[in-house]
């Protein structure tokens, strides 16, 4: 029996799990901005001094009149973006995850979310993967604090291709967005021709014993876990929950009904992020055992990303163990 059943349309053809193409998610953001710049004169970009780091430098060089430098001033950046939106522009405000959410939280709350401004907040360098920079730069709370804001949409693409598509798609919705991505190279494996369906989860693999609901880089980690679990004859559904808000309630409930237990995986605190969002849906609609993979109410530290994934319990090995725990809890 084959314990791994892949849905081809969401993944690239001839995907080599052992040797995937590596590409930066932030580069997907930067490339999409340049593409948007060509077709939409209203797209503008704000720079908070880290334009090279977040890959907005390509847009800056291509469309200098539509790039506004505000210095290292994230609170002002969010307000300026709201003002640009009022003037009919589609502003992209981008910096590192913590400084795109925690630092300017009140500005986002009042001037963007409450005011329903068409501002796209794009955060690079999220999660543990900024590794050596340490805890100050490891954004592990950003999804939670954006998710609790009314009117805010939250997207966590998994790779370069999906980041690119999500950035293009978010300009079609006249609402605030938070889009989260990463600094390092990571596997690029989603089908570039698959439509990005905002608010609709992608089921990448079918399975019957358990469902993994993962976001961002943890989707790839989960794919590695599936390989391990198949050796133990455990069949797992894998859902890429790229839209954290509005979350795909139907996909969550169906997964609980079909497979009886859930494991959530995120490079983020367990509290408040994807895990919290999934548990909220299940508690209301279809209670089922849930195991959480993510930061356990702790800050990170310096180290290589792989070392941190191991130490903080969010590697593929940990995911596989969590799946087994979840299955044991099924009645």
């Amino acid at each position, binding site marked *: 029996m084959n314990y791994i059943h892949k849905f081809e349309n969401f993944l690239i053809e001839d995907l080599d799990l052992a040797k995937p193409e590596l590409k930066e998610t932030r580069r997907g953001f930067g490339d999409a901005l340049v593409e948007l710049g060509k077709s939409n004169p209203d797209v503008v970009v704000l720079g908070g001094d880290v334009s090279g780091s977040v890959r907005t430098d390509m847009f800056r060089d291509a469309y200098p009149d539509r790039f506004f430098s505000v210095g290292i001033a994230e609170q*002002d*950046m969010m*307000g*300026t973006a709201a003002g640009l939106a009022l*003037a009919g522009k589609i502003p992209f405000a981008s910096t590192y995850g913590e400084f795109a959410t925690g630092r300017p939280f009140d500005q986002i709350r009042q*001037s963007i979310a409450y005011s329903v401004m068409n501002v796209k907040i794009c955060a690079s360098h999220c999660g543990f993967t900024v590794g050596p920079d340490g805890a100050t730069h490891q954004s592990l709370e950003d999804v939670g604090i954006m998710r609790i804001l009314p009117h805010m949409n939250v997207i966590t693409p998994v790779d370069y291709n999906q980041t690119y598509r999500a950035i293009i798609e978010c300009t079609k919705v006249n609402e605030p967005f938070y889009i989260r991505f990463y600094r390092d190279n990571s596997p690029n494996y989603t089908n570039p021709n698959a439509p990005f369906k905002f608010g609709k989860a992608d089921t990448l693999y079918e399975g019957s014993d358990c469902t993994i609901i993962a976001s961002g880089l943890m989707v790839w980690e989960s794919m590695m876990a599936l390989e391990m679990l198949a050796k133990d004859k455990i069949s797992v559904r894998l859902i890429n929950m790229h839209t954290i808000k509005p979350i795909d309630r139907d996909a969550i409930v169906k997964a609980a009904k079909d497979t009886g237990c859930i494991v959530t995986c995120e490079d983020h605190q367990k509290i408040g992020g994807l895990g919290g969002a999934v548990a909220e849906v299940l508690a209301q609609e279809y209670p089922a055992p849930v195991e959480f993979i993510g930061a356990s109410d702790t800050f990170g530290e310096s180290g290589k990303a792989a070392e941190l994934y191991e130490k903080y319990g969010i590697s593929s090995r940990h995911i596989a163990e969590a799946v087994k725990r979840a299955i044991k809890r099924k009645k």
Partner: protein
Amino acid sequence: MFPNLKNPVFTDIDDLNEMARQIRRDIINMLLISKSGHSGGPLGLADIFTALYFNKLNLLPEDPYNAERDFVFLSIGHVAPVWYATLSRRGYFPLDELTTLRKVNGRLQGHPAPLKTHGLPGVEIASGALGQGLSIAVGTALGLRLSGEPNHVYCICGDGELAEGQIWEAAMTAHHHKTDNLTVIVDRNHCQIDNRTENVQVLEPLADKWKAFGFEVFEIDGHNMKEVLETIDAAKKVKGKPSCIIAYTKMGRGVSFMEDNYKWHGVPPNDEQGKIALSELPATKYGDFVDYYKEK
């Protein structure tokens, strides 16, 4: 330049001063009805709001979001009563609605609520958490300039509010981008909720601060209508840099026991105090929107 837009309503200084007095009466009546809200700041700003809305701004009340309008951002959201009274007097919405200040299901929220969720004509964006208005004003000024539009952007800030760091971040952005389509008006009443500004945290030398941040600075008596009008014109003519009008005002202006008294920052008058206040602000030819004491 704006063939579709209207203003001035009044050119005569006496007419404007009388409207400012009516707006002050409206503020008192609104607060008597709501029994909640800020008295001092709104009374102090009545002259400046009258000058803007009844003479200087390009606007069209029946089409409040006309593309050619001048933008007004109220960074100090708590002085909303003066804005609501002015907008209503200018025809943005019926005077009757002034009775709904701070009431549930109302559009006249305690602090200005967003257009998209509450829909009060004339309001562009939410404000209330201090320090945020200037960034928004700068962003709008940049966006308008990028589109080649000649609209002018005004941002009204309090003086106590200037302790918020974001104000100075925004000032640096305005300077860097030379947003000369932007004018900041600082309500320099020397009062904030806890005490006089200089006792809470020293703000002077304030004009020097704005100059150092790259602004063309004007200092005026914020209750002298002629000076207010002339300075708004002068600020709009500044080229190559943003402008700042420091308007010296008195908190609670027009009501003797409130005037220049920081304790009137955040409280409404009671019925007895309201009666005295209205007696000190003689009735005008424009008429009140309510007879509070008769209806009681």
